[in-house]
């Protein structure tokens, strides 16, 4: 079987299109194709959780600064719970919680599947982490900016939308890039926690682990997986770098320089 044939058969296997039966021989081509196919899930979880999480994170950051006590407390507890406990345990807990709810009402049926249940956990998790980042940025907005906005008669929603929010994003962006990278890394946890794979449609790590188990040779599939992830990290850095340039477009050239994302947190 030629490699092109393999790619045609297996490139979309992780989402259920193409050949159902897993290959029986494990050449480099099969490994590249199937692990790459699994990356679809990682991208799916990462992108959707990031987009939805972004909005909730803004809400959480603003909530943490709120003067109303119950809003502030809710936001603080939300951040504490999701940042203080391991994502791995959160996945397990959510899965079994959804399982129990399923017995109450069939509405919760799709929640026990990874595509929705795990997405919700990742979404809440990233919202908590980036909410904390945004909150830090919100607190370090230069006082002068806000005073100037007041002097121009900005108030309430327009002031937030035109002045505070863009500045907050600009300040938080390097740290937020980090958060995005680690969110994508965290997506590998999905199929290793409670959420089951249906019909062996797993993510990239699932297939890498499958090949390592079958060939008893970890030195081929895991480096392939690592290569894919490094590529993806470079893509994220590229896209976020462009956005960073856009956010900082009004600043003098010197200050525009993209601060290298430093990676020192994982979950």
């Amino acid at each position: 079987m030629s490699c092109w044939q393999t790619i045609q058969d297996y490139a979309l296997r992780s989402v259920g299109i193409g050949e159902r039966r897993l290959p029986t021989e494990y050449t480099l081509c099969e490994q590249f194709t199937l692990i790459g196919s699994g990356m679809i899930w990682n991208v799916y979880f990462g992108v959707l959780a990031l987009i939805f999480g972004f909005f909730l994170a803004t809400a959480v950051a603003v909530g943490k600064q709120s003067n109303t006590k119950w809003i502030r407390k809710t936001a603080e507890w939300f951040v504490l719970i999701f940042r203080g406990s391991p994502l791995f345990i959160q996945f397990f807990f959510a899965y079994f919680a959804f399982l129990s709810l399923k017995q109450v009402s069939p509405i919760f049926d799709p929640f026990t599947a990874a595509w929705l249940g795990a997405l919700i956990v990742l979404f809440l998790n990233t919202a908590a982490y980036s909410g904390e980042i945004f909150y830090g940025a919100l607190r370090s907005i230069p006082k002068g900016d806000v005073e100037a906005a007041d002097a121009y008669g900005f108030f309430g929603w327009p002031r937030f939308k035109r002045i505070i929010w863009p500045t907050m994003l600009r300040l938080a962006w390097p740290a937020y890039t980090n958060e995005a990278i680690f969110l994508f890394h965290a997506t590998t946890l999905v199929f290793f926690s409670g959420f089951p794979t249906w019909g062996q449609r797993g993510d990239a790590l699932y297939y890498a682990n499958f090949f390592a188990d079958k060939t008893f040779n970890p030195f081929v599939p895991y480096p392939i997986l690592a290569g894919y992830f490094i590529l993806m990290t470079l893509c994220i850095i590229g896209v976020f770098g462009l956005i960073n340039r856009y956010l900082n477009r009004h600043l003098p050239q010197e200050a525009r320089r993209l601060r290298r994302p430093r990676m020192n947190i994982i979950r």
Partner: protein
Amino acid sequence: MACYLTTGKHANFYYAFGTVLLLLAITAPAALAFGFGGAMAARSRVLPLSWFGKAYISVVRGVPDIAFFLFFVIALDQMFEWVRHKVKCPDWGEPIRQGNDFVVCQAAKLPLGDAPQWVHETYGFFVAVLTFAIVFGAFAANVLYGAMRAVPRPQLETAEAYGMTRRQTFWRILVPQMWVYALPGLSNLWMVLIKATPLLFLLGVEDIVYWARELGGTANPRFTNYPHGDWRMWYFLVLLVFYLGFTKISEVFLERLMVKLTHGQATTGGESQRKAT
């Protein structure tokens, strides 16, 4: 209820919390040692050594940690067996990798095939600790590498002016001063390490996640071992609370340590402490 929660199986569950704490207690210093070695290698003047240090730091950080956990457990195991194979059975004719199999002679098996159960468990735990140390060593190396460069330059120049050698400057001036710069990063890392411990489950150690799944579940719907339904949700809630409490306590403790370390340092924190008294 109280009677049920004190069965022998539950004792295993409680011991597993001890396993997690033990893992943390062993891994933290080991990872710090790996990190120190990595940082020293990265700032070495010997070029290959410096490349090695930098490659170690960037590769481990650029790839999902869970992939490394899964990789190292097999890779380390095979490496040990391969080395023992070469030493113990030099006259073994067949190749080690036969297609999809990894074959070593009986004497090189690790742990030996006839070893008791606890040896197997301890070996698995040991490999897990080593894996954690390698992965978190890279993160620690990055933090320490940054901290070493954050020590004010004049301090080192003064040491040179006093005629200290490079080695003396490193051990007597740089190392004692770098900790205050490294502590925020290291405390962050400690939090991450705590939150990474449930991954032990993936490495085949019978840890709290394993027992929570075992005890909470109805082992088999037909032959129920446990006098309850699906309680896994509650068991995992307990774990969630355990980790929350643990990170909270660590936070308080690390805050105190930071206050102590900044005492008398040439930083803004140390300066404000001096003014306060």
